[in-house]
């Protein structure tokens, strides 16, 4: 652990070797990341953390790109409490995507998030494909407004994209000028809501159709990440469908559906009845997902699931992820991604490997 004696803090936002342009610099589609460590959506609120722990969090975020909590078209209350319970090496949650809705998000949080010195990956979910499209359109409109487009003067003022026409000249469409700063992650994998979302992400056809539709309103070269659920028979099939649909990267994985009973009443403990399991318990399962998907798709992967130590980071990179996200383990240390980035640098030096050489090495012949 990094112990800086001046304020006694255990970890800091920017350990040596993780500066932009350093040896850990990595590419996620059009986004350039100073290092491969980011946060998993819903497990780190940078604006809240900055209010509690100090403005250094927004000045020098402990993540190479920031992924806010899922935003939906309409505001949501989320599930009733209790929402959390610890299990063996894991955390079960049934948060249920509480959020202010995309309108408020664009008005209130987005301007501040665009001021961050790192890329932003907005995470969006919906309960029907239309809701996804409308929410993403609203977001794109806000970004076009704030940061501009090139290639067509009218796009920024039209919140509704033209319907998809096969064969239409892609080059003639307006290009987002912000594609190098802002990406989109579509959450088709939350197990804690009862329609849409994970029910889309468990079906390759629905996944394909949704990504197709989203590519219309979130055009190339802007980053479109599909966040997949592991609660499927064949994650390779869903991954391939997402890639065919137009995803530029995949995030693997969201939580595993589980259940905890109240030890006294013996009824389901969580307000949402079932919940999603995360934490070290699921790491081998998440690692398998990354490894298997890497065998089938060419787009970059974001490895997520139980990352707690630098060993986990190295494992996900070796299995084929280009970027690794810290989820629940970051609750114990909000600077964990930055700390792990520092330790990753050391690991690479000790192994005399570059980051590029490490990525996917588990697939090379022994």
């Amino acid at each position, binding site marked *: 652990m990094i112990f800086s004696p001046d304020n006694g803090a255990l970890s800091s936002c920017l350990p040596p070797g993780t500066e932009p342009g350093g040896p850990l610099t990595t590419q996620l589609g059009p986004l350039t990341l100073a290092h491969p460590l980011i946060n998993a959506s819903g497990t780190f609120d940078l604006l809240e953390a900055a209010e509690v722990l100090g403005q250094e969090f927004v000045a020098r975020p402990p993540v190479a790109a920031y992924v806010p909590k899922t935003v939906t078209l309409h505001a949501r209350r989320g599930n009733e409490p209790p929402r959390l319970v610890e299990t063996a090496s894991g955390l079960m949650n049934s948060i249920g995507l509480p959020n202010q809705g995309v309108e408020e998000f664009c008005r209130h949080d987005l301007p501040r998030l665009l001021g961050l010195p790192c890329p932003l990956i907005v995470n969006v979910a919906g309960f029907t494909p239309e809701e996804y499209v409308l929410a993403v359109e609203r977001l794109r409109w806000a970004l076009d407004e704030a940061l501009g487009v090139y290639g067509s003067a009218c796009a920024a003022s039209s919140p509704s994209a033209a319907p998809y026409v096969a064969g239409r000249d892609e080059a003639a469409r307006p290009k987002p000028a912000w594609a190098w700063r802002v990406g989109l992650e579509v959450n088709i994998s939350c197990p804690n809501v009862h329609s849409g979302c994970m029910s889309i992400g468990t079906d390759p056809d629905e996944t394909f159709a949704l990504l197709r539709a989203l590519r219309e309103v979130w055009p190339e070269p802007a980053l479109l990440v599909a966040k997949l659920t592991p609660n499927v028979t064949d994650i390779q099939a869903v991954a391939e469908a997402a890639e065919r649909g137009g995803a530029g990267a995949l995030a693997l994985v969201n939580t595993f559906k589980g259940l905890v009973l109240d030890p006294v009443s013996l009824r389901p403990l969580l307000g949402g009845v079932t919940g999603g399991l995360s*934490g070290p318990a699921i790491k081998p399962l998440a690692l398998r997902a990354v490894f298997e998907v890497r065998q089938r798709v060419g787009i970059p992967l974001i490895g997520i699931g139980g990352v707690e130590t630098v060993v986990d980071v190295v494992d996900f990179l070796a299995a084929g992820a280009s970027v690794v996200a810290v989820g629940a383990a970051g609750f114990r240390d909000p600077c964990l991604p930055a700390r792990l980035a520092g330790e990753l640098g050391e690991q690479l030096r000790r192994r005399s490997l570059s980051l590029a050489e490490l990525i996917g090495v588990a697939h090379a012949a022994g």
Partner: protein
Amino acid sequence: MPTVRQPALRLGEVVFCCEAGAFSRVRVEVPGWAPARPGQFAMLHVEGSARFLARPFSLSDEEPRGAGAVLTFVVAPVGPASQELANLRPGARLSVLGPLGRGFDLEEILAPAPARGACPAALAGSPRRRLVIVAGGVGIAPFPLLLRTLAQGGGGGRSAPVCTRTPLLLCGFRDQAQAEAVSVLQEGTEELRRAGMGSGLLCATDDGSVGFHGPVTELLRREVSSGDRVVACGPPAMCRAVWGLCRGISDVQCWFSLEARMACGVGSCHGCVIPLADGSLAKVCRRGPVLRGEEAFGEVEHDLLTR
């Protein structure tokens, strides 16, 4: 220019751990610790523990040491993490994230709010009102620091208003073993006395082994009177009962330190929400843990409150 010390994750070392009745009193030295308000909490995680998450514990006391502090926690061993904490030995290390949350706002609590319809001038001559402190079980935890802060408000190092009210402590326990935990209040009451302030202390036990035989709310019913301020910490049922009792008395205001299962303590996870009186959900770690009675419980029917 000295760095402003602010809440952060720090490494602490246990300097002392002993029983306090059925609970444990754990003292942890934390370099760099930023001074806290009474009622704030910290997320604790023992190094090498099998537990995945840190757990929230009220800051029970805080004494400056060097560029940091020695913190005291009062821990009820109710499950794996709290048992582990309660049994630590000196030298054990733990991570401490804090201070967190909104604690007791003494400016607000001690402000001479006029009774409805009475003009401020009328208050000047009124008898000195009380600050009634109601603790249930390990709910006693936040009050040593509250007492110390009240004592220092009269000139000590802490930025607290001068205490214009006489503290009265009402502590409810299950049995004698638990009741021995009142010892944690001793330093605070002494400091109050040295600062020239009196304070009262009454105990109640469920089994009658110590003090009053019955619920602590029964003591409260006898003691509380118009114009008092009440701060409470304890099981949810106790808090609701306190509110049910007090909200009908004119010019009595209540603050409650509430609990919820937490993962992050800093507002990141949306896990610690509780329903407020207006039906909305609030994060205990950010909006609380101390909430006003109206916010937390509102105008709920009396029988709902005491269930």
